């Protein structure tokens, strides 16, 4: 018998920001929809261990998609004449539109890094749509640590430098194979895409002013950050949570900025209790 994983991948057609898009969407499992948002400059392969985890998929319909310009989701027609820049508004609307297009009823959204940032805005603007929100490596703001001009220029290899920059965000205890798989996604990114995602992170996405609008009684918010993440540090997450009554913070030992892909076994020790708690609140 061929050894297939239970993940199904399909292409979803939907209009985003007034332009037709073709998004690659993977899913596995049944139950509460759990939409997973990948990090900047990467793609939904980061969630393959979550999609293959029976302890999760027996209760959750896990959905992970490549954002436009990422992975197997093509950029929109005419992309060659524009600079890709993700914004708070387009990112927020993308998640809402995808959930509506897939007719997901009260989904949980779990995002990492920029995905962790955008769940804060989802909580503030659309909290009633979601059963719960999970921010991995999430903060409303954090201090930049390099010039993003390095990410897309002709004299430095974009894939190599993107991977090299983020390589140190992982915990040294994470297995080498998982760390390098995580970096491979950065090496595969299109030119300027990581930089374009970071436009949201660095320029357009300071969400400190929206935190007061988050109501965790309406939509529970869980924030989990790896102790080795020096980009979004545990202190950044805790500072964010201080402005959100009811937000639950977990600092994850021996994990960094990519918990779901850099060390899946360690991450599930932290995420399974959160998913169980969300489910038991039914």
């Amino acid at each position: 018998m061929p050894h297939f994983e239970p993940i199904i991948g399909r292409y979803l057609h939907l209009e985003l920001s007034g332009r037709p898009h073709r998004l690659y969407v993977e899913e596995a499992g049944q139950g509460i929809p759990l939409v997973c948002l990948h990090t900047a400059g990467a793609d939904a392969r980061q969630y393959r261990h979550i999609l293959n985890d029976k302890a999760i998929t027996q209760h959750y319909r896990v959905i992970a998609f490549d954002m436009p310009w990422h992975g197997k989701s093509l950029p929109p027609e005419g992309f060659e004449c524009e600079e890709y820049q993700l914004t708070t508004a387009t990112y927020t609307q993308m998640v809402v539109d995808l959930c509506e297009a897939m007719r997901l009823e009260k989904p949980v959204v779990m995002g990492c890094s920029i995905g962790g940032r955008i769940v804060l805005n989802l909580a503030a603007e659309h909290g009633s749509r979601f059963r719960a929100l999970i921010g991995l490596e999430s903060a409303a703001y954090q201090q930049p640590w390099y010039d993003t001009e390095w990410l897309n220029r002709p004299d430095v290899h974009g894939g190599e430098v993107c991977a090299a920059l983020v390589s140190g965000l992982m915990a040294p205890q994470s297995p080498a194979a998982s760390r390098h798989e995580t970096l491979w996604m950065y090496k595969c990114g299109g030119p300027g895409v990581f930089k374009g995602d970071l436009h949201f992170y660095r320029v357009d996405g300071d969400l400190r002013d929206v935190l007061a609008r988050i109501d965790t009684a309406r939509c529970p918010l869980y924030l989990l950050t790896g102790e080795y993440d020096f980009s979004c540090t545990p202190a950044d997450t805790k500072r964010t949570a201080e402005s959100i009554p009811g937000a639950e913070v977990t600092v994850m030992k021996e994990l960094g900025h990519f918990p779901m892909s850099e060390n899946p076994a360690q991450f599930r020790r932290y995420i399974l209790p959160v998913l169980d708690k969300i489910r038991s609140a039914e």
Partner: protein
Amino acid sequence: MPPVAIDPAVTERVARAFERLPELAAADADLARRGRFLTCDFEIGVGSVPLSVSIDHGRVTSVKRGPFLLRSHTFSITAAPETWAGFHQPFPEPGDHDLLALTKSGRARVSGDLVPFMGNLQFVKDLLALPRLLANTEDAA
């Protein structure tokens, strides 16, 4: 960088560990392949002690300890001896574990021509971390 108390013994241990880069790099069969486009002299600063590292197509051909008289380097990477010692632990503490974590916190400084540095960033980071392999020996930094 914030002032750090300098222990001469730590400086010596870290400098000695970096002086072993030629043999440590030679023992890593793939490292020279990954750094094959880099040929330059760069400087590692261990506090006030400069080390000049010569790279030829990814091979570490020499590490010389200063002081130097008007020697030029393509780029320089400087941190306090205690900072390097933490970086060289086999499993460094969070924040001590990556060169760019050190630059973000202001505990390391990178200067000079950063195009070859960024163009070979993973190679340089891997090279600087090689003394972690010495952690269980008496020469550990």
